């Protein structure tokens, strides 16, 4: 199994992301025994209420990766219109192009085998800065973001501080 396509490609991606990490992002397998479970740390983008925060997330890869996308779940508190209350990230790049339950995502934004962990994490980072409230995963957060932006931002900042143990 060690030489399966999926694990080979995950090693390759691990190598790339270690040698040349995008700014504000680190990621790698939790243990080298199981290359299919990764942990990622994303820095809150500057100029957003997430600034200054470090957000841990867990990525789980299917055995037929890269044909099918991984799933991503924040393991910290995350108050965001596109993150479910349980931490699961809902973003078009993580959705396989086959079926579109929400009927709003362009095929070009969806998962394709040529995408990568790096591109997912960069997309998630920009999602933090610019939520997409067309089909929110967390309806309450989306409503708050739309209607009471300052409360939303305070909530996010409080989470950031809590995450840093302040």
């Amino acid at each position, binding site marked *: 199994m060690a030489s399966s396509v999926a694990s080979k490609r995950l*090693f*390759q991606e*691990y*190598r790339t992301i270690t040698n040349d990490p995008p700014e504000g992002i680190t990621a790698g397998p939790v243990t080298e025994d199981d290359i299919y479970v990764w942990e990622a740390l994303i820095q809150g983008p500057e100029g957003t209420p997430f600034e200054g925060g470090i957000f841990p997330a867990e990525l789980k890869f299917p*055995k037929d990766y890269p044909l099918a996308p991984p799933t991503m779940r924040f393991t910290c508190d995350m108050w965001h219109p596109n993150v479910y209350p349980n931490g699961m990230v809902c973003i078009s790049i993580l959705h396989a192009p086959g079926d579109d339950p929400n009927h709003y995502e362009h095929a070009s934004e969806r998962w*394709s*085998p040529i995408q990568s962990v790096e591109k997912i994490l960069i997309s998630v980072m920009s999602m933090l800065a610019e939520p997409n409230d067309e089909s929110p995963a967390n309806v309450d957060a989306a409503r708050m973001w739309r209607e009471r932006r300052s409360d939303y931002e305070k909530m996010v900042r409080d989470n950031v501080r809590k995450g840093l143990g302040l």
Partner: protein
Amino acid sequence: MDSISEVSDPTDWLPTPLPLLAPVDSALRCQVCKDFYETPMITSCSHTFCSLCIRKCLSSDGRCPACREQDQASKLRRNWAIQEVVESFKTARPQVLDVAKRRENEEDGSPVQIKGRKRKWQDVGGEREDAEGARKAARQTRSQSRKATTSAISQDIVILDSEGDDDYDPSGEAEDYPQPGDGLVPCPVCGARMKEEAVWLHIERCDGNPPKKLSEARSITPQISASRHNRPPQPNLIPRLPQLNYSLLKDGALKKKFDDLGIPNWGSRELLIRRHTEWVNLYNSNADSSTPKSNRELLRELDLWERSQGGRAPARDALSKKKDFDGKAWMEGNKSQFDELIREARKKRQVPSKKEGQKEETANDAERSPNMPSALPGQLALSSTKKMPMFAMPSEPIRDGDGIEDSTQ
């Protein structure tokens, strides 16, 4: 087990004095497996992928992974030119990288004697020549040309260098080079000697043609063209397997096909179809290859698939691994129903009634856990909560939809 250090990657070039080779390295890799192209195939939309990678993608969703144009495996064509480039680059890569790394050490390490550096530059010339053709050999001595050939085999520039020390003959070299001790270095591409600082500028416009001494080149050219012919430019004669229209085949007929193909025919119909698809991909990509593997090797690869994704895969994968089954979306779409069912089941547990049997069935159905023995009414609430992690739910207890409180605790 693979180890991270065994994986070559375009980023290997970034810390060396040759970071511009990173995009070259990357351009020679398949975007699906991120490794160097293996039996590259070109699609109708003119994108290139490894044969096996693109065949798997096409059998999964019928579209090119790069542009999402619809395409069919039968329209794939080989891309021999890329294959040739990849193969020569793969041969040259370890040596070029080694030289680049050493040069980096020299630059920020202690000064190295000029002679040592010069020898290395000649070695670069040697390996490029090996990879790209004999023209560049024109200014090499015969002994160096020979060394270059051995270098391709040993792939080890260090050994090459120490061997070279024994038969290193400055006087012999003087026949071809103006002066070994003239403070000049040869261009790694054409071998022309020039001042060290001029080399970089020169490389940019070097066309690989040495200025003179073509007689030696002629003597080596036949070898090179011979080696080019080792790679058959004509397709091998293994016929491709046709894809089957599974819906037209009854189970018995399908299994008979499997016997004819010599692949295992156990398992459910769904598994049979997935196995056949995998086999057709493995077989046809092997048929594309210029160096096909044996049937036994292919069967071993199928067995590997069987154990990682097929019928012998660990049970938790079997659930969600139907190709187009989006477990996450399904789980998310039905979360409210799950919660509802769990709530009701809990309520029912507290107030036992005659309708339980029916409820229980619905709950089990929603969880898609057919293996679970039909739960006794008393176990229902417990087993529902326990089964949830199968849908990649968090390990925390299930919440009842009150998001605000949850994420602010």
